[in-house]
C-alpha cells in the first residue's frame, strides 16, 4: 500500500527546516524558494501550516498537461512529472488549486513533491513530526485517534475544573 504525507500542523513549530532540506536534497541549493514544501505562517496567531502537494487522485495538473508528462504512480501513491516529456508550459502551475507546484526558471522545470522516491527528507528532518510519512489508509485512523485523544483530554480537563469548583 502506498504511503502519504500526513501533516499535523498543530505540531509545526515553523522552523522551516523542511523547506531547506527539500531544496538541498533535490537541487543541492539551500534556497527555500526551490522547495516543494512550504510553511505558511501567521505569526500573530502562532499558526504554521506546511503545505505540500496533495498527490490528488484525479489530479488537475495531470488532466491539464498538454503533453501528458504528469501521471499517477499508484505504487508510490504520487503524481509524478516525467521531466523528459515536460515542455515547461506551466499549465500545471496555473491549475494547481493548492499552489503546490512552482516553476524554476533556472532549470526550466516545474517543482513538485515527488515524495523523494519513498523516503521524504522533510519527514526525516522534521523533529516534531509535524510532517509524517504514513500508510495512506492509516491517515484517517491517525486523525480520528488524535481527535479522540483530544476529546478525552478536554473531558478530563473539564471534570478537573468542575472538581475545583
Amino acid at each position, binding site marked *: 500500500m502506498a504511503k502519504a504525507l500526513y501533516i499535523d500542523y498543530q505540531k509545526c513549530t515553523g522552523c522551516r527546516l523542511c523547506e531547506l532540506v527539500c531544496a538541498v536534497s533535490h537541487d543541492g541549493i539551500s534556497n527555500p524558494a526551490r522547495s516543494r514544501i512550504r510553511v*505558511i*505562517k501567521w505569526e*500573530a*496567531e502562532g499558526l504554521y501550516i506546511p503545505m505540500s502537494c496533495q498527490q490528488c487522485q484525479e489530479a488537475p495538473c495531470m488532466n*491539464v498537461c*498538454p503533453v501528458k508528462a504528469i501521471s499517477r504512480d499508484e505504487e508510490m501513491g504520487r503524481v509524478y512529472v516525467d521531466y523528459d516529456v515536460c515542455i515547461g*508550459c*506551466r499549465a500545471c502551475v496555473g491549475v494547481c*488549486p493548492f*499552489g503546490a507546484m512552482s516553476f524554476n526558471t533556472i532549470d526550466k522545470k516545474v517543482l513538485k513533491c515527488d515524495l523523494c522516491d519513498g523516503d521524504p527528507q522533510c519527514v526525516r528532518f522534521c523533529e516534531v513530526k509535524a510532517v509524517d510519512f504514513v500508510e495512506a489508509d492509516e491517515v484517517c485512523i491517525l486523525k480520528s485517534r488524535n481527535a479522540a485523544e483530544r476529546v478525552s483530554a478536554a473531558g478530563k480537563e473539564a471534570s478537573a475544573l468542575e472538581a475545583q469548583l
Partner: protein
Amino acid sequence: MDFYSIVEGPLLWIVSLVFLAGLLIRLSFFLCSIIISNNRNEEKGQIYTISTLGRFFLPLHKASTKKPFYTALRYIFHGCLFVVPIGLSGHIVLWTESRFEWDWTALPDTWADWMTLILLGFAAYFLVRRLILTNLRRSSSILDILLILITALPFLTGYFLAHGTLDSMAFLGDNMVIIHMLSGQLMILMALFLFYKPRLNIQACTGCASCVQNCPTETLEANDKGSLRIFSYAHFQCICCGSCVSVCPEGAAELRHEINAKRFLQVFSKREIRSVELEACERCGAYFAPEPQMGQIGLIFASDCIKCCPNCRKTKMGERLHQMSPWHRSPKESDETLKTDSPCR
C-alpha cells in the same frame, strides 16, 4: 564594354565575393552570439546547441511530421533548388571553360528539365497558397511574395533558355540570358539576407512560453514586464532547429523565411514578436500567468481557487484547513487576523 559583359564578368565576381564574405560574416556573428548567450544549456553544452543546427531539416523531426505533405513539398523544392544549378550540364560547361577549369558529372538533361518544372510548379503552389489562405496572406508581407518570385525567376528563364521557347519574341528573346544571370545573382544576394523568423500565431498562442524554455540558443525570450509578457527574438541566433515548432502544444509556433537587409547589421538587437496579457491575482494583485492560458485551464478545471497566484492559493488553503479544524477558536476574531496578516510571498 556592353551591359552583357559587365553582368557576365565584373558583376558576377562582385556578387560571388560579396556572397562569400557575407557568409563568413554571418557565420562569425552566429558563433559570437551563440558563445555569448549560451548559458542556458549548461547541462547539455554548446555541442548540443550546435548539433541542433538545422535539425528542422531532418525529415523525421517532430516539427516536420506535424505537416507531412507540406514538409515533403518543401524538401523536394529545396532539393531541386540546389541540385539543378549545380548539376546542370550547361553550367558545368561554363565552369570548365572558366579559369578554374572545374568539371564534375552533370545531371541528365531530362532530369534537370523535370526538376526545374517541379520546382516551378511548387513555387507556383507556394505563391497561390500564400495568396489564397487568409491566415497566411494577412501575416505575410510583400517581401515574402518577392522571395518566391525571385527564387523562381532564374529557373523560369533558364528553362526558356534551354528550350528556346521565347527566342522568337523580340525583347525577351534577346535579353533572356541577361535576365537569367541578373535574377540568379539577385537570388544569391538575397540568400545572404535570408533569416529565420519564429512566429507565434496570435489566435492559437496561449503565452505559455514553452518555446522559450526549449529554445537551445536563447533566440526566443520572454520577459514579464508589468501586466505583459513580451516575447522577443534575436535573428542571428536562430539556427532553425524547429524546437519551438515541435514543442508548441497549440501548434502556434512557426518558422518562416524573412528577407531583411537591415537585420544584417543589427547583430545583437532583439525584436518583439508578441505580447500577452498576464492575469492578476485576486488577492495580492501579482501577475502570475498569461490570460489565454488561464482561460484554457478554466475550460478543464473551472474553480474559484485558480483565480489567485500559487502563493495565495497556499495561504487560502491553509486558512480553510485551519477554519475547518477543531482548534479554530472564535472564528470571527481569527478570521480578521488571518485576513490582515496573511502572508503572500
